[in-house]
């Protein structure tokens, strides 16, 4: 039985430690951590659809980037924009895009879904890359961080990296609580049921399309929140924020950290971005090494760091409610009697 002390105390300890970081580390690391948190948010939002929903979406960066662009377009050059106005706008845009893309893509299954989401993501990329909506391929600047004020009285100063960090940490805590509540709810259970056996879930009476679309839109909105603050942090948006390379990178984080839990992808973000920092310091061709690591993970550690922890530490690191990462069936070459099923779709 999982130690309830461990379940409650450990996270509190981690949050407290994290909150103390700005007092312990130089600004560079504070800003780096903010970046990690925001990408972790993006990865966790994607996981609602991928890990819990069982749908491999390749366009989530588009929701992230759209929100950023919304902020850029709504930000005047001469002063800060109001957070109260621009945040809902950005999230609204991202959610709307998720509704449109999800509405169309969720009509397809399996491999088609992957390719369709990829293509829609690219469509949005080209929308900003080829047109002059916001600087085209050059991107656009956000000269002032959004202002958080009531009646002209500033409440939070986002220009201060420490404050920004705490805001990002706060968002993280809220996101995790929200996603945990969602995945533990009746809705969450139904989403997972649809992933585990779509035919049976439908036969029981669950409206599969509606459930998945809802998850997709929520996920897109959360990605939008992450994108809004990421754009605010960089002070700059470019089409690459919408590109499929970023979408694939977050997917790596999700798998790396563990798809079956809410916080897994956050761990994946920490590990991947940490790794990148180390590699970047070693060689300018760090992408090559990262590529090799990704390949290695897929071949050797399909369950991500959970797998690694399992092997090194035994079952102590596994939470009791998590099934052990499903042992991959041995690869069945085409032509062999097909024991494995690749496709989720049923005849």
């Amino acid at each position, binding site marked *: 039985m999982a130690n309830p002390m461990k379940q409650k105390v450990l996270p509190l300890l981690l949050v407290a430690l994290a909150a103390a970081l700005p007092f312990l580390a130089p600004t560079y690391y504070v800003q780096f951590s903010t970046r990690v948190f925001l990408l972790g948010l993006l990865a966790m939002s994607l996981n609602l659809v*991928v890990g819990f929903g069982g749908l491999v979406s390749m366009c989530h960066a588009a929701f992230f980037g759209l929100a950023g662009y919304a902020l850029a377009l709504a930000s005047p050059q001469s002063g800060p924009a109001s957070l109260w106005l621009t945040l809902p706008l950005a999230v609204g845009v991202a959610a709307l895009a998720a509704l449109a893309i999800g509405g169309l893509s969720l009509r397809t299954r399996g491999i088609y879904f992957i390719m369709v989401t990829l293509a829609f993501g690219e469509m949005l990329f080209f929308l900003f890359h*080829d047109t002059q909506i916001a600087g085209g391929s050059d991107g656009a600047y956000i000269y002032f961080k959004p202002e958080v004020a009531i009646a002209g009285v500033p409440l939070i100063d986002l220009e201060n990296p420490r404050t920004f960090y705490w805001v990002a940490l706060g968002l993280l805590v809220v996101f995790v609580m929200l996603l945990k509540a969602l995945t533990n709810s009746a809705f969450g259970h139904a989403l997972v049921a649809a992933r585990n056996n779509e035919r049976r879930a439908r036969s029981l009476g669950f409206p599969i399309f509606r459930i998945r679309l809802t998850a997709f839109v929520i996920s897109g909105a959360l990605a939008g929140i992450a994108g809004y603050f990421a754009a605010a942090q960089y002070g700059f948006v470019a089409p690459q924020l919408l590109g499929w390379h970023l979408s*694939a990178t977050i997917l790596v984080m999700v798998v790396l950290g563990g798809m079956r839990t809410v916080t897994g992808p956050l761990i994946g973000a920490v590990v991947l971005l940490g790794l990148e920092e180390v590699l970047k310091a070693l060689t300018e061709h760090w992408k*090559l090494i990262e*590529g090799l690591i990704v390949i290695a993970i*897929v071949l050797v550690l399909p369950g991500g760091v959970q797998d690694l922890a399992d092997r090194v530490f035994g079952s102590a690191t596994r939470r009791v409610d998590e099934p052990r990462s499903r042992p991959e069936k041995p690869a069945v*070459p085409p*032509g062999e009697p*097909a024991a494995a099923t*690749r496709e989720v779709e049923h005849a």
Partner: protein
Amino acid sequence: MDFLTFAVQLLNGVQYGLVLFLVASGLTLVFGILGVINLAHGAFYMLGAYVAYWITSYTGSFWLALLGGVAIAFVVGLLLENVFIRRMYGRDHLAQVLLSFGFILVIDEVRQILFGKDVHSVATPDFLRGSIPLTDVLSYPVYRLAVSLFCLAIAAAIFFVIRYTRIGMIVRAGAENREMTRALGIRFDAVNRYVFAVGIVLAALGGIVIAPISTVYPGMGDSMLILSFVVVVLGGIGSVAGAAIGALLIGLADTFGKVFFPTFSSITVYLLMALVLLWRPNGILGKREV
């Protein structure tokens, strides 16, 4: 737009569509027969173009580049299948997506190391230089016509092999009923290896033949990848005929899109895909009953 300009654009659209078909057919074969989604397909297209540039700049011969590129692609394909791809059969799509993404990262960086970020051009082979006059004032480049014919020839060859040869029969049988074919003693390991290698060759071929027409640049793999996916989605996975229809549609849509809505041309393609999917969620020639 007058008729002649229309005719030229039509020819361009068809030629582009045929190259798209060449590349997309590789993608749809690998997925349809091996069940593996390969995001790095575009990267091999890009590599084909860079290798063509490299060989032509060293030897001055485009034909060497063609032969050399195909040979290299074939060998690389065999190696990759043997070492990596055969571990991916039966695994879920997410794993395949990530593996191929890893490939892309590696290939991109290798290209960076070997060729840098430079944009290159490849000279049209002497034999195929010049243009065919269509009217007093308008003429059409011979090379483009040659490319179209070449792609048609490859398409015919694929069709022929799949329909009329022993290997094609094995491939079709395997795609339809694996257990039975296996029970008949047919060894699939070798066939799988060749199918994957051919898939890679088709992608690289696309890059090689397109090199003299368009520039050789780092991002060319990405755009081709997405377009091939759109073609495959439109035409239905595993359907080579569907890929042909999809490729021509996209080729024409993109070419005419660039003429009429230059800024929005890329978007037109995806819009087309969205509309088709509303009508047929499994592609034009894909399975009907969901």
